[in-house]
């Protein structure tokens, strides 16, 4: 495993490219130097903190309960992140909590309940992290698409309501389009994997000296899990969010469009 450790000197050398970036910013007057240095420092501190915590959690002597505590914290942080990225979505915090915890529970059940991996901290934390991390993006996209479709087709939705359709029926065609859009990008990612980019887990395993075919098996399993997670998240968001966009007496609420 020696070839996989780059050590502090290796890390220092990789900073050369940050120096190049800072230099370019100074040269073109972009005024991003401070931001870049802050991001560089912050990333290191955050990752180091996580690293030392991981040392504790993956230690075979540490009770596996700590790994589950970590998972719960990740679900919470993911929900807060989703809210920060899409503050215009009503009730996004609760929706994200529901979606990430359901999809994480499902995928962790498949991995550990069916015995793909043994239930040890070394497996629980990284796999949960990948599932939950990928969930955030799909949740934000699903929220934006549902609200966007409903705002773009407000006239049609209200025409349906005015014909006496309940909101579930009046919104159905638009929720369907939104959920399709939100899921399509993950399907495309799954198709393109390996052709354009080598995904992180696989890259890491290969760098760490694992057999590439073993790395591929792990990566494929992860891609399938992520696809399942994304589908779960998107459907939960679609059902949960669309009911928040209507009042109990079947009126479409006013919708704020996303800033970006």
């Amino acid at each position: 495993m020696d070839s996989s450790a780059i050590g502090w000197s290796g890390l220092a050398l990789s900073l050369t490219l940050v120096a190049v970036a800072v230099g370019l910013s100074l040269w073109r007057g972009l005024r991003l130097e401070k931001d870049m240095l802050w991001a560089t420092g912050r990333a290191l501190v955050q990752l180091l903190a996580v690293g030392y915590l991981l040392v504790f959690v993956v230690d075979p002597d540490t009770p596996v309960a700590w790994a589950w505590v970590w998972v719960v914290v990740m679900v919470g942080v993911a929900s807060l992140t989703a809210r920060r990225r899409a503050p215009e979505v009503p009730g996004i915090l609760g929706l994200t909590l529901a979606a990430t915890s359901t999809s994480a529970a499902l995928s962790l059940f498949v991995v550990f309940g069916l015995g793909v991996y043994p239930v040890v901290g070394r497996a629980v934390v990284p796999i949960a992290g990948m599932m939950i991390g990928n969930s955030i993006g799909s949740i934000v996209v699903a929220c934006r698409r549902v609200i966007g479709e409903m705002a773009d087709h407000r006239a049609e939705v209200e025409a349906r309501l005015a014909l006496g359709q309940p909101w579930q029926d009046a919104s159905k065609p638009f929720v369907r389009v939104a959920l399709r859009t939100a899921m399509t990008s993950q399907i495309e990612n799954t198709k393109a994997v390996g052709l354009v980019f080598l995904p992180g887990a696989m890259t890491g395993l290969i760098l760490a000296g694992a057999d590439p075919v073993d790395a591929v098996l792990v990566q494929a399993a992860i891609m399938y899990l992520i696809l399942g997670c994304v589908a779960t998240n998107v459907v939960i968001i679609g059902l949960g969010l669309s009911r928040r966009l209507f009042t109990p007496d079947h009126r479409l609420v006013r919708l704020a469009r996303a800033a970006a």
Partner: protein
Amino acid sequence: MVGPSGAGKTMLLRLLNRLEVPTAGEVSYRGRPLDELDPLALRREVGMVFQRPAPFPGTVRDNLLVADPDAGEDELVAALRSAGLEARFLDRSADELSGGESQRMCLARTLVTQPAALLMDEPTSALDPDVRRRLEHTARRLADDGRPLVWVTHDLDQCARLADAVVVMIAGGVATGEDRDRFLAGDSETGGDDDEDDDEDEEARRG
């Protein structure tokens, strides 16, 4: 119902259909407050036609079936006829209709729910004068057949041609007395029949 743009005509119509609820006061239908009635049943009882036609995807038949999936061919044809369209339109694609045809289809779609009354929000504002007159005749006939019809317009001439009774709305309220007379006499420059201020109405209702 007539008044300058931004007077709240569209808002009032939406209140009648319960697409909005009042922040104060009460809307009643046949003596009963709307919040005691099933909103979906009310909307089928008091049909609404919007300012701009909103065709759904598919054929005219698909559109009419949204209003009542169990409607038979006879009912669809009857609704089309009442709205001034012939039976052959049923298999036309809804997004290929002209503006006037599309608005008639929306009227027919509403008629499929067998409403007891109709609300029409400036239904002719996007139509040519010729087509406009024909839709007015259609509305007149529906009203003469015993279906009360609230027609919103900012066009005083149209109001004079169509109305049995006139409600004047100005600045969010019903105008009476001198204000009403002055508006109906056309003293205000807002009585024209152009379309350009429709968007302001739209703005007004979105708040």
